[in-house]
């Protein structure tokens, strides 16, 4: 093994010499990569304290706006309910039946 090892060492010593040129902008590129990484480090802070609350507020606003827009108060229905309470004669048949049922129910309660 030692003889082989010495020959291998000699062969390598004679053939390992390299003249590898350093790229001209290498240092600048390393600094550029480091600066990019440092900038990225700042993003989580910005995300948590600025973008996060802004997104949450926007979302709440959107939900509120949507719910107001899709479920408006039905004024006709309110009017009908009020008028039927005041004058059962003016109501339609089915509404009158509903009211009769309510009257029956109340009288039943009184009896007990």
């Amino acid at each position, binding site marked *: 093994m030692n003889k082989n090892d010495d*020959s291998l060492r000699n062969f390598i010593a004679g053939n390992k010499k390299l003249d590898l040129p350093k790229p001209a902008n290498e240092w600048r590129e390393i600094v550029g*990569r480091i600066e990019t990484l440092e900038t990225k480090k700042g993003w989580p802070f910005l995300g948590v304290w600025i973008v996060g609350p802004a997104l949450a507020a926007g979302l709440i606003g959107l939900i509120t706006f949507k719910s107001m827009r899709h479920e408006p108060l039905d004024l006709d229905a309110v009017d009908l309910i009020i008028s039927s309470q005041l004058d059962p004669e003016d109501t339609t048949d089915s509404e009158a039946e509903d009211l009769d049922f309510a009257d029956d129910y109340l009288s039943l309660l009184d009896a007990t």
Partner: protein
Amino acid sequence: MDEFHAIYIQNENYVRKCLYWLLDRELVNDVVQEVFVKVWQKMDQFENKSSMKTWIYRIAMNTAYDHMRKEKKYISLETIDTAHATTEIESTSIHQELLKRAVGLLSAKQRIVFVLYYMEELSVQEVAQSAGISVGTVKSRLSSAREVMVTELKKHGVSL
């Protein structure tokens, strides 16, 4: 940044040479950059337990290892014709190419210890520190790597 620049100036040359033997040629310059970006990121973890050089070797070896695991076995020694080398310069450059390709035949783990020991001429202890393995493991990997290298080189007419 001045201190880091000095570290880069002192160390980039051997890191580049080492990576040349470990990786595909086109990758070397990019990986040199990657190594020094990691050196910058880990500067505060350097504890003077080993020399700065050994510490940087270790970062370089880990980075190279990540790349080596991804690479395909791309090397064929058959394409190199040592018999037709006429001048000494031609012969040296052919032997250099042969050596590079033979190193490429080693497994990633063998290659690391082989390059550190034979090309960089580190001691077995330094190789162990740089590669993050035990002295015994270094010796066994060196032994198997040596076997592969000698067989391959002999096969292509190198007298060892």
